[in-house]
């Protein structure tokens, strides 16, 4: 009905977005997914990286952006229930989402008409709160939960049950879990990360709106202050316990480890997941007030790191090699047997690693006046059965930190490979 349906998309902030495209172009030519070079730019000018932080991260690539992309500062994560039974409608929504995601990650409005260009009588196809804001490094990463393939009664919902990867097996119940089902799991998730919280919220809000009738929001989570670095260029941030978090994280530059532990490889399972990765989410409430009245020495013993430098206990600098065998003069282990770093360390977990990409969260205060805060843990991996599950079992049983944390939400999603061409869409190989 609207005659002017042709591509009238104008970026929200033309000059900056174009600058971003320039950077992205170089990145795309130089490296996988383009994300690495943007990371390299960050490395040299992290503080004054306004233009870079504002720029666009390429949406297309062999892998989805938002995984090894240098972790942005803000998160809006959402999990949806699919409410339609119609496979064609689900596919159409994934196509619509892909088109909108491509536009928004490029700093443009969600719909082809835009927030202000349409007729006055109709609601705009973009909600408008990102007008004037640059792309802000926005990435949108989609994942499919186990329940998309089969419902609770085992029924094949969309003719894709035979494509469900074995690696997408439900996570076990871990000792001490206090999971709230209402804020856990979901059929489809979208992780929006950006350097501007409003840009991340805008993206999720518009995708949710596009999806109405096909999906319904099940739960969502805002996060701030990335708690992991995913490239060597980024300084290690601190979590709400006040400790550096992610020193030993899997980093984008570790090519061999990325191959071994992050991306699903040919032959791992169904072909549609090759180039993808499995995402585990855990909302971990921290018992902030109790932690804050714990002595510095005990805090460091529990974590296994020195609070100031982030070095492993017994070492001088953050990245000095941890020595799990070191003993004190009394013959006691320098790193306590129940210290978090020891139990999470690859050497006690068969050498496996995770790419963590979590965020701090503060959901205001609870009814008792306590900070409702903690870590929204996100980890990507090649096979959760060999990575997250054994590591978390070990932590859940023995970690001294358990006294100060409660896992209140859980999620597992299969994130397909990236969108590679114009007609491609999120999950195309799954629904082929």
């Amino acid at each position, binding site marked *: *009905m609207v005659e002017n349906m042709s591509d009238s998309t104008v970026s929200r902030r033309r000059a900056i977005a174009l600058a971003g495209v320039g950077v992205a172009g170089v990145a795309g030519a130089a490296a996988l997914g383009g994300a690495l070079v943007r990371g390299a730019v960050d490395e040299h000018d992290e503080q004054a990286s306004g233009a870079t932080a504002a720029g666009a991260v390429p949406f297309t690539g062999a892998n989805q952006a938002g995984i090894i992309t240098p972790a942005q500062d803000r998160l809006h994560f959402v999990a949806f229930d699919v*409410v339609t039974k119609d496979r064609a409608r689900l596919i159409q929504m994934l196509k619509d989402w892909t088109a909108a995601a491509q536009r928004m990650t490029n700093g443009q409005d969600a719909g082809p008409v835009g927030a202000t260009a*349409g*007729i006055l*009588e*109709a*609601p705009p196809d973009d909600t408008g709160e990102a007008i004037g804001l640059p792309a802000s490094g926005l990435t949108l990463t989609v994942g499919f939960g186990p329940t998309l393939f089969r419902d609770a009664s085992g029924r094949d919902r969309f003719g894709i049950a035979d494509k469900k990867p074995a690696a997408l097996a439900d996570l076990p119940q871990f000792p001490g879990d206090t999971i709230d089902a209402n804020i856990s799991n979901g059929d489809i998730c979208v992780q929006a990360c950006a350097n501007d919280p409003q840009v991340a919220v805008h993206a999720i809000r518009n995708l949710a*709106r596009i999806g*109405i009738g096909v999906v*319904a929001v099940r739960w969502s989570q805002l996060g701030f202050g990335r708690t992991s670095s995913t490239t060597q260029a980024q300084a290690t941030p601190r979590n709400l316990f006040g400790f550096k978090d992610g020193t030993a994280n899997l980093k984008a530059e570790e090519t061999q480890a990325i191959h071994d532990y992050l991306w699903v490889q040919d032959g791992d399972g169904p072909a549609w997941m090759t180039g993808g990765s499995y995402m585990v989410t855990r909302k971990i409430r921290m018992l902030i007030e109790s932690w804050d009245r714990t002595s510095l020495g005990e805090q460091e013993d529990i974590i296994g790191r020195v609070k100031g430098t982030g070095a492993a206990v017994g070492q001088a600098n953050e990245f000095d090699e941890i020595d799990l065998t070191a003993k004190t003069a009394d013959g006691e282990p320098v790193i306590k047997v129940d210290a978090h770093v020891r139990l999470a360390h690859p050497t006690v977990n068969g050498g496996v690693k995770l790419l963590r990409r979590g965020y701090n969260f503060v959901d205001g205060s609870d009814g008792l006046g306590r900070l409702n805060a903690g870590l929204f843990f996100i980890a990507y991996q090649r096979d959760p059965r060999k990575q997250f599950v054994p590591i978390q079992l070990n932590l859940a049983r023995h970690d001294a930190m358990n006294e100060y944390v409660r896992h209140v939400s859980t999620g597992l999603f299969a994130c397909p490979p990236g969108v590679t061409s114009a007609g491609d869409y999120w999950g195309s190989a799954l629904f082929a």
Partner: protein
Amino acid sequence: MRTPRLVTLVAVGAVSGALAACSGGSDDTAAAGPDGPITVKATDTACEVSKSTLNAGTHVFAVTNSGAKVTEFYVYATGDRVMGEVENITPGLSRELRVELPAGTYQTACKPGMIGTGIRAALTVSGSSAPLTEDAALQQASESYTRYITSQSEALEQKTADFVAAVKAGDVQKSKDLFPVARTYYERIEPVAEIFGDLDPKIDGREDGATKELPFTGFHKLEKDLWTTGDISKDGPIADQLLTDVKAIAAKAKAEKLSPLQLANGAKELLDEVANGKITGEEDRYSHTDLWDFAANVDGSQAAVAALRPALEQRDPALVKQIDEGFTNVDAELAKYRDGDGWKLWNTLTEAQLKGLSDAINTLAEPISKIAGVIAAK
């Protein structure tokens, strides 16, 4: 895609003329037709219409309710577009419906208990009729909706009078029973009612919205007294004022002719009412009869959409299909909470059940929000 406005205005006149010509003569001859009025025998379980085929023209349906429940009678075009209806036919009563029917396929429906989709039967009207131009379709939308508003307003007056009488008689139980029923008619036409300045807050205002100038009166003040203290002994003046205000608003509503764009926005606003007032339990916070209002808002929205249907079918049939699915989905979700001829109380639903209703409303409201743009697009 569409002819310029000036030309189409001429076309409206031409087509209206053509339609009148097709209807096979003057209203009088049709109404007095050789076989007299079409009889409808309504009971609590049946709806016997004496004819299932008619010639195009104006017809009179004589509806007799021999059931034990209050009933309604409708003639629907495709998509439940109301061609004519009579509301509030109490047991033992007979009422007549006069309706102009161009050639086409229709459905008749009785709604014993005034709830659900009713007992339906096919009705075929033969004759020739020219397809409507887009603008003629839009003009008919306003007329069709005016018919709906008129019948709802009449029922609103009657049911409010019953409720007010019960309150003044001090009959708490009867007042409680009639409260959600009277409100049903109000909630169906709420977007129209809201046009008229202070009348809506006086009739339907909530305690937290009251001011010195507009104190807490109307339905919800009586609701509060009925459900919290049960003391309505001093509520006579409030009840009288409610009836006066309802009569005033009904008279104004019947005289109001909404534009197609107002209809489109009204359909959306009714669903916003559901999303923001009923699912949250705010509307009927003392009685928790929110699902009555919920169903009534959805009815009203559907009536507005149905009035616009011929125009929408011409411009965006895919949207019509989406909206139809949306209404079906809401009806199915709502049907889970039927309780006799009424609805379960809001406070007996779980959070998950309310989310199911909320999702269904959002799924419907999104395509409905697109109607205005489709109607307005040139």
